[in-house]
């Protein structure tokens, strides 16, 4: 059983036991415009909640991706190396960025569910 959470930084994370898959929301990719490069961390990188862990570059600008929780990077989406446009085409599925092994059991407070997130971006 997996649960998808959303953050105020316009990221989503799917939690499957102690593994989180991370990406940016459809709203985020639309705001960034055509994505031309994703700079992913190396596998094994330790990530700290709130710190930049990756960078996404659109034609317009470079934007940091923040780690939504503490943990260790265990996988990166290598398809994005040659096809960064996957983030535009399939932001919440094939366009995932990295997988993180959680350092501690997830504290779900502070994240939003899909409804709450969609409401937060209509303001």
């Amino acid at each position, binding site marked *: 059983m997996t649960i998808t959470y959303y953050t105020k930084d316009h990221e989503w994370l799917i939690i499957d036991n102690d593994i989180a898959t991370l990406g940016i929301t459809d709203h985020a990719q639309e*705001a960034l*415009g055509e994505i*031309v*490069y994703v700079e992913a961390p190396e596998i094994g990188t330790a990530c700290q909640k709130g710190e930049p862990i990756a960078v996404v*570059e659109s*034609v*317009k600008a*470079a934007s940091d991706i923040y780690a939504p929780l503490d943990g260790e990077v265990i996988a990166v989406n290598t398809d994005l*190396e040659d096809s960064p446009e996957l983030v535009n085409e399939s932001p919440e599925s094939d366009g995932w960025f990295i997988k993180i092994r959680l350092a501690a059991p997830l504290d779900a407070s502070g994240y939003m569910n899909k409804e709450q997130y969609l409401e937060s971006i209509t303001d």
Partner: protein
Amino acid sequence: MSDLLKTPLYEQHQNLGARIVDFGGWALPVNYSSQVEEHNAVRNNAGVFDVSHMTVSDITGSDTLPFLSKLLANDIYKVSSLPGKALYSCMLNESGGVIDDLIVYYLTDEYCRVVTNAATNQKDMAWLAKQAASFSNVSVTEKSDLALIAIQGPKALDIIQTKFSDDIASSTKNLNRFQGTFTENSADNIFIGRTGYTGEDGVEIILPANKAEQIWQQCIDNNIQPCGLGARDTLRLEAGMALYGADLDEEHTPIESGLSWSVALNDKNKIPRDFIGATALASNSRYKMIGLILEGKGVLRGHQKLLNNSEEVGEITSGTFSPTLQKSIAIARIRSNCELSIDSTLHVQIRKNQVEARIVKYPFI
């Protein structure tokens, strides 16, 4: 957004679903839909930009030419026998730094029209007023009730000439590149310049604010793609055109900014010209500009440092991903004594990585 300045076309941008940003205090569209599609429309067909935030000033009086000759690093007398002819120039401070870059259209010996940048409006107008005070017969009038619409692309003139109202269509028929004219009915107060900031053929139309909506709508109705600031930036960078505040500033001379072609140290009789900043330009330049194409992965951006054999030699002033070349490109400023030739490579510090880039001539397209 509520305290931002709005152009006469603000409602049109909203109706088109534009993403609006704060650009130097103005609420302007950065893109309407896909920035790359907007870019490609201008390269292949035609696009329209609202550039009403730019400043239009009319310089009038019998001292118009002596005033502009003193004020500008380029020589107004190059165009002063060619009515309507445009001249690109920098306006320098006493130390040779660039206060702003501009286009001046020569209309008569007693009337020139100048278009300057938006973000520099206050200091520009103060500088113009200060310098004009030394001349007994020149007036500088900022025209604040106007709109500016740029229509750019290989098909732009054709569409205008076949689809637009007679006076606008016919005015463009005998217009040479880098030339401007008022349309035939002078009461309309519509000025058309065959100029732009994209590297493509096209026009910039300066017109009363209350006529802007009609021309804008005519563009939309004729499938001219509305384009935002995002596409404007990628287009101008591919065309190797400088952006004030990025590639140009008061800390560097135009020669140190890749614009020596726009500096006229001497007049046509080879006599040194006496313009503001001329003395400072006589000393050696500290920097030069180069073009870069990224060979490795990433995107070149302004302020990234350049390394030649791990020695820092300069930094990028403007960088982006080029939709036309499908590669990242940049304009960079390096020390003038740096011995790097076209096609040699150096490294760009992109966050924690050093990525290889090749030096190229620009324009990039």
